């Protein structure tokens, strides 16, 4: 197994491609290449919005046997992420968790935790400590 995929993966989902990509850039600056990372932003036509197919593809790109933590902005991002996780199918769907945390801070803190080799539950808990 390559060292990259040994760490928990991070997926960022925003209604805006610019926000999603920008947050991913900040994560990359923090942890470099040692955490699998992908983002999905915008609807199927590239406008503001979210879509399950794009999120599913992002989870596949950031896939890690250690699991994937997903960060979302507004309602539709969460609902479409849930749908994408279901479509991933068992048993992998059980290893993907949507974090109840702020998108940017959550993703950066989770990635820092993941880069040290922390397990999925630990990565998620670290991000969720941001949300009282």
């Amino acid at each position: 197994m390559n060292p990259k995929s040994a760490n928990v993966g991070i997926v960022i989902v925003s209604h805006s491609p610019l926000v999603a990509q920008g947050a991913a850039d900040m994560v990359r600056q923090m942890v470099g290449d040692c955490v699998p990372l992908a983002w999905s932003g915008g609807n199927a036509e590239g406008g503001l919005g979210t879509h399950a197919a794009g999120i599913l593809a992002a989870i596949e790109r950031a896939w890690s046997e250690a699991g994937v933590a997903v960060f979302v902005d507004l309602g539709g991002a969460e609902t479409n992420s849930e749908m994408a996780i279901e479509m991933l199918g068992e048993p992998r769907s059980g290893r993907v968790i949507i974090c109840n945390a702020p998108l940017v801070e959550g993703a950066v803190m989770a990635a820092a935790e993941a880069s040290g080799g922390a397990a999925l539950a630990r990565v998620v808990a670290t991000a969720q400590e941001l949300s009282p």
Partner: protein
Amino acid sequence: MLVVLANAALIGGLIDICREVIAANADHLSELDRAIGDGDHGTNMRRGLEAVYAERSRLAYLPLPKALEEIGLTLVMSVGGAAGPLYGTLLIETGRQLAGSGDVDFPRALERAIDAVARRGRASAGDKTLLDVLYPVHAEVVRRAGLAGVAEQAERAASLTFGMKAMRGRASFLGDRSIGHIDPGAKSCALLTAAICRFLEEQSPA
């Protein structure tokens, strides 16, 4: 009802009329969404129905439960917003319930599918969502109201969301200011229900 429905002309016809009613009302739906949301409901739904229409010739030759499930999956993959997962769940679950081994009739399948939509959206009756149309429609189906009655009830139910305060989705950020607008999801649901009822009425033998 199911026996009548299970053929290519009917599945294809249903796809056609749903696509038509959404295309004809897409601007209006986006306008309703602009008032209390992000203004994309009409374009999102139109994109979804166009994606379904693009697969029409394949979908029409599937058994009805399978067709419903696949139409739902197509909507999930193409609509986006909250509407994609919600309409997708409704159709996927209706199809799966009808295909299941148990003796599940249409009203029972619809009931379970609506419950799945409520879980997916973490919403309940009165939250100003498409559930406020789905629940009354199901009640009419259960009491075996005629197709015209179901259509009328759907339209009436959508109008009633005007006075509701949104509890889910982006409209909920507006609090009391969401009152005084029809919910776009409830409206699209009523338009689709009414179009489907009209179509089925035209198909049924006099």
